[in-house]
C-alpha cells in the first residue's frame, strides 16, 4: 500500500465530524476504527466494494476496475441504483489482469490502454478507475496513470484508491468520498446558482428512492444541485461546492465529505433521513431552516410547514386502513444505522410490537433514539447469530422479519414472512410515500395465504392418519 493511501486512511479514521471518534481518547483514536476481521468468521464487503457502492450511481461515467477478474466479474450489475437518463454506469469494465500482466509488470500499461480505448468508444463524462488488492500489492501507480491519461485525452480520469485489503466496506465509502474531494468536487462551475441549492450526500437512489423525495424539495423550490451519488451526472458532482446546504443521509458513509466541504467551501451540513414520516418532515424542516440561515427568503419556512402538514396528513390517511390489521403484530427488525429507529416509529404508529431491533451498525446517537422511541433498551440487540435468528423465527417469537438479503433465507426456511429493507430491495421506501409503501408491503407479506399452506404438515407427518374407510371413499 502506498504511503499516500496510508496517510489517507489515517486521516479518514481521524474524522472529527464522527461522533464516535470524538468520544474517544487520543490513544484510542490513533488506532483508527478498523476492527480487525476474524478469519473464518467474517462477513461483509471489502473497501473496494464500499468505494464502488458509493460512486457507481454516477450515471454518465465509466467505472473501470483495475484488477483480476473476480473484483468486477463477480460483482457487477448487482444493485438497483436507478438512472433517469444515461446507462453508461451499468457497464462492467475491468482490466481483467492475467497472470502474464502480473508477472511481467504490465498492469499500468494495460490500465492506460483500457482508459484510452474506453474514452474512444464510449465518450464518457469521466472515467473512475478503482484500484484493487493485486495492483496495490505489485505497486501499480494508478494515480500517475490516471493523471497522465487525463492530461493526454482531456477527460477527467479519477483514481479511486481503495483496494479491498485496506479494510471494510465502510472505509471504502469514505475513501470514495476522498476521491471526490481530491479530484471531482469543485473542479467545475454550475450553470446557475440559487439560494435554494442543496446537495444530498450518501443517497444512492436504490430502486428510485431519490425520486420519492426530490419532488418534495421541488415543490418548495429547493433545487438539488447534486445528489452524491444517486442518479448523479459528473458535472453536477463536480460543481457541488456551490450548494448552500448539505444533507447527509447515510451518516457513517460520507461524513468526511460533508465536513471537508464545510471546511473548504463553508457549506453547513446536517444529518437526516428519509426513512419514516417524522424523519422526512424533520429533514425538510432542517433543510429549509438552514437555507434561510444562509440567506434564502424566510417564507420558505412557512411553505415547508404547509407542505409537511399536508403530506403527513395524506400519509397517515393512507396508512390508517392498515392499522386494524397490523395492530399487535410482532416485528423483528434486523438492519442497522438510522433504520434501526426511523422505521420503528412508523411501525409503532401502526400498533405493531417491535420485538427487537438490531443496532450493530448504529451510532451512540442512533441507540439513544431507539431507546427514546421504544421506551427502554430491552429490545435493542447487537448482532444475532444466524442459528439463533432461525430459532426465534421458528418458535414464532416474531410474526415478520424486516432485514437485508443476507438473512432472507433464514426467515424463508423458517417459513416466516420477510420484507427486504436493505440495499438489494426492489421497493422504494423513502419519504412519505415510501413509508406508506413499506406498511403496505408488510401487510401484503403478513397476510399472504402462502404461509398457511406451506406450514401445513405433509400427509406423512400428521398425527392423525386418515382412517382407511375415508381414504377409499374420498374423491
Amino acid at each position, binding site marked *: 500500500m502506498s504511503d499516500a493511501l496510508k496517510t489517507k486512511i489515517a486521516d479518514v479514521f481521524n474524522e472529527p465530524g464522527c461522533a464516535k471518534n470524538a468520544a474517544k481518547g487520543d490513544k484510542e483514536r490513533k488506532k483508527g476504527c478498523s476492527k480487525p476481521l476474524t478469519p473464518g468468521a467474517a462477513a461483509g464487503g471489502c473497501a473496494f466494494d464500499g468505494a464502488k457502492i458509493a460512486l457507481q450511481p454516477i450515471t454518465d461515467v465509466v467505472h473501470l476496475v483495475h484488477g483480476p477478474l473476480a473484483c468486477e466479474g463477480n460483482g457487477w450489475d448487482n444493485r438497483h441504483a436507478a438512472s433517469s437518463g444515461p446507462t453508461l454506469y451499468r457497464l462492467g469494465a475491468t482490466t481483467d489482469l492475467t497472470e502474464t500482466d502480473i508477472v511481467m509488470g504490465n498492469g499500468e500499461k494495460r490500465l492506460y490502454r483500457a482508459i484510452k480505448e474506453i474514452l474512444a468508444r464510449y465518450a464518457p463524462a469521466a472515467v473512475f478507475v478503482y484500484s484493487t488488492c*493485486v495492483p496495490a500489492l505489485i505497486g501499480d501507480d494508478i494515480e500517475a496513470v490516471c493523471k497522465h491519461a487525463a492530461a493526454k485525452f482531456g477527460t477527467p480520469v479519477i483514481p479511486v484508491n481503495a483496494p479491498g485489503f485496506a479494510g471494510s466496506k465502510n472505509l471504502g465509502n469514505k475513501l470514495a468520498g476522498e476521491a471526490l474531494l481530491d479530484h471531482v468536487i469543485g473542479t467545475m462551475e454550475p450553470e446557475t446558482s440559487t439560494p435554494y441549492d442543496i446537495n444530498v450526500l450518501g443517497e444512492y437512489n436504490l430502486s428510485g428512492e431519490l425520486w420519492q423525495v426530490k419532488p418534495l424539495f421541488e415543490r418548495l423550490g429547493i433545487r438539488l444541485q447534486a445528489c452524491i451519488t444517486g442518479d448523479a451526472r459528473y458535472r453536477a458532482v463536480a460543481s457541488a461546492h456551490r450548494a448552500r446546504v448539505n444533507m447527509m443521509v447515510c451518516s457513517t458513509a460520507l461524513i468526511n465529505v460533508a465536513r471537508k466541504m464545510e471546511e473548504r467551501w463553508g457549506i453547513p451540513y446536517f444529518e437526516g433521513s428519509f426513512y419514516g414520516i417524522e424523519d422526512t418532515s424533520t429533514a425538510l424542516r432542517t433543510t429549509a431552516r438552514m437555507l434561510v440561515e444562509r440567506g434564502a427568503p424566510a417564507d420558505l419556512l412557512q411553505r415547508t410547514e404547509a407542505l409537511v402538514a399536508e403530506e403527513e396528513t395524506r400519509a397517515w390517511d393512507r396508512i390508517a386502513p392498515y392499522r386494524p390489521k397490523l395492530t399487535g403484530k410482532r416485528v423483528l427488525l434486523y438492519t442497522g444505522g438510522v433504520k434501526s429507529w426511523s422505521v420503528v416509529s412508523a411501525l409503532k404508529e401502526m400498533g405493531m410490537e417491535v420485538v427487537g431491533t438490531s443496532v450493530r451498525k448504529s451510532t451512540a446517537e442512533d441507540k439513544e433514539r431507539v431507546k427514546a422511541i421504544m421506551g427502554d433498551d430491552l429490545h435493542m440487540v447487537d448482532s444475532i447469530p444466524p442459528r439463533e435468528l432461525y430459532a426465534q423465527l421458528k418458535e414464532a417469537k416474531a410474526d415478520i422479519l424486516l432485514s437485508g438479503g443476507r438473512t432472507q433465507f433464514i426467515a424463508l426456511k423458517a417459513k416466516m414472512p420477510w420484507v427486504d429493507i436493505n440495499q438489494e430491495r426492489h421497493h422504494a421506501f423513502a419519504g412519505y410515500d415510501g413509508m406508506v409503501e413499506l406498511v403496505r408491503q408488510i401487510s401484503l407479506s403478513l397476510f399472504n395465504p402462502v404461509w398457511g399452506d406451506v406450514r401445513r404438515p405433509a400427509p406423512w407427518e400428521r398425527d392423525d392418519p386418515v382412517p382407511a374407510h375415508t381414504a377409499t371413499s374420498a374423491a
Partner: protein
Amino acid sequence: MAVIVPSRKGYAVNPLKSSAPLGAALAYLGIEGAVPLLHGSQGCTSFALVLSVRHFKEAIPLQTTAMDEVATILGGTDNLEEALVNLKTRMKPKFIGIASTALVETRGEDFEGDLKTILRRRSELDGTKVVFASTPDFHGALEDGWAKAVTAIIAALVEPRSPGADAFRQVNLLPGIHQTPADIEALRQLIESFDLHPVILPDLSGSLDGHVPDRYVSTSFGGTPLEAIAPMGRALHTIAIGEHMRAPALALRDKTGVPATLFPTLTGLEPCDRLVTLLSRLAGKPAPQALRRQRSQLVDSMLDSHFHFSGKRMAIAADPDLLYCLSMAVSGMGAEVVAAISSTANSPLLDRIPAERVIVGDLADFEDEARAAGAELLITHSHGRQAAARLGVPLMRAGFPIFDRLGAQHRLTVGYVGTRNLLYEIANIVQGEIHEPRPGDFSPSPRIIVEESGHVCETASAC
C-alpha cells in the same frame, strides 16, 4: 473447424466469466457438511457469496481467511490456521474446501505445505477433512476452479484400489459445473434405472436443489457423503461430463484404475444414445421401457420443433463446455451459430464448435458480434439482459449466474427428457417472436440467403 480469436480489446467490458475460486467453492458445496473457504480478502468471499445467493436463492455457507494488507505481505498461514480453527468451532463442518485467490497467489506461498503443518499441529481439526485447490482469479474461470477442486478432492480423499478387489455395481459420475442440480438428479435416476449404484462427485442435487430442512444447518446440507468418496475405486466405470472434467477423470483413473469415459455433452439425441449404450453394456441389461419411451418423445419433439430452428441465427456466450453443449444442440437442429463467445481459451473443444469462429471475450464482444450478424436469439447468462434490451432480441438464459429468473437449479437439459425440454424452450422463444407478415417483408430487394452450416457429431472420447 472454428477459428479461435482473442478479443481485440485490452480490457473486458461486461464480463462473461465468473472467477475460478467461485467455481471451486460451488464444487465444494456439493460435499455433505461442507464449508468452502476462500483464501483472500473478505471481498473475494463477499462478491462470490452474493452472486451465488442471487443464483441459487439459498443461504450459501462461504467463508474467508480475511487477508488484510499486513497479512498478505507477511504471509497468510496464520490467517489460514485461524480461519480453519474458527470454522471448526463455529460450524462443525465435516469438510472444508480451501480455494486460493489472486491476492494470495500473487504473493505466492507453499499453501499445501503450510496446510499440512497446520493439520498436524492443531488436533482440534481432527475429524474434519480439509482440501486445498490453487485457483487464482487471474487464471481461467468457473470451469477451471470447479475442475481443480474436484481433482483436489480426488487426490486427497479417494483411496487407491486394493489389488484384487472386486468391482462393485457402482458407477462414478463426475458432473461438470454446467450441470444443474436437476441434471444431476436425472442422471442419478438414469444410472439407477439400470440397477447400477451411482456415486456422484460433487453432488449439488442434494445440497443446492432448494429444499427446506426442518432445522438450521450452517454447512452445506446434502451432497456427496464423505464415506462415499473414499471407495470410488470399487466402481465399474467413471463417467465425466464436459471437457473440463478430463483432469479429474484422469486423476481418478490413475489413482484407482477405474476406466473412464468423457462425454463432452449429454444434451442431444446422439450423446444420450451413447450414454445409454454404455450403461446398458456396464449393467448387462437392455434399456428399460420408460427410457425407450423418453427417447421416442425426444425424437418427436425434434421433428416438431426443427421448423423453429431451421436457419435461425443464434448467438451464444458461455464457458467453453456449455458453449459447446448449446451450440451443438442448436446447430444439430438446423440453427446457425452466428456468434460464439467463450469465456476462456482453456478448452481443446473450442475449435470443434460449429461456428465460423469462436471469440474468447466478454459480453461486449457478444453484443457486437450478435449485432453485426443479425442474431435472432441470444443465449447466455443473466448479465446478457442489457445486451438483449439494446439489441431488441430475445434472451434465453443459460449458465451462471441466472439471477433474474427463478428455478435455475431445477432446469433440466441433459438426457432425453432434458434435451426435449431445452428444444421446446428455445422453439417457444423463437415462436413467440414471429410477427404477422407485412407487405414490406416481401420487397424485391435481394434477401440474404443463410446457408445452413453443417454440424459435426462428437464421438465419445475415452480418456
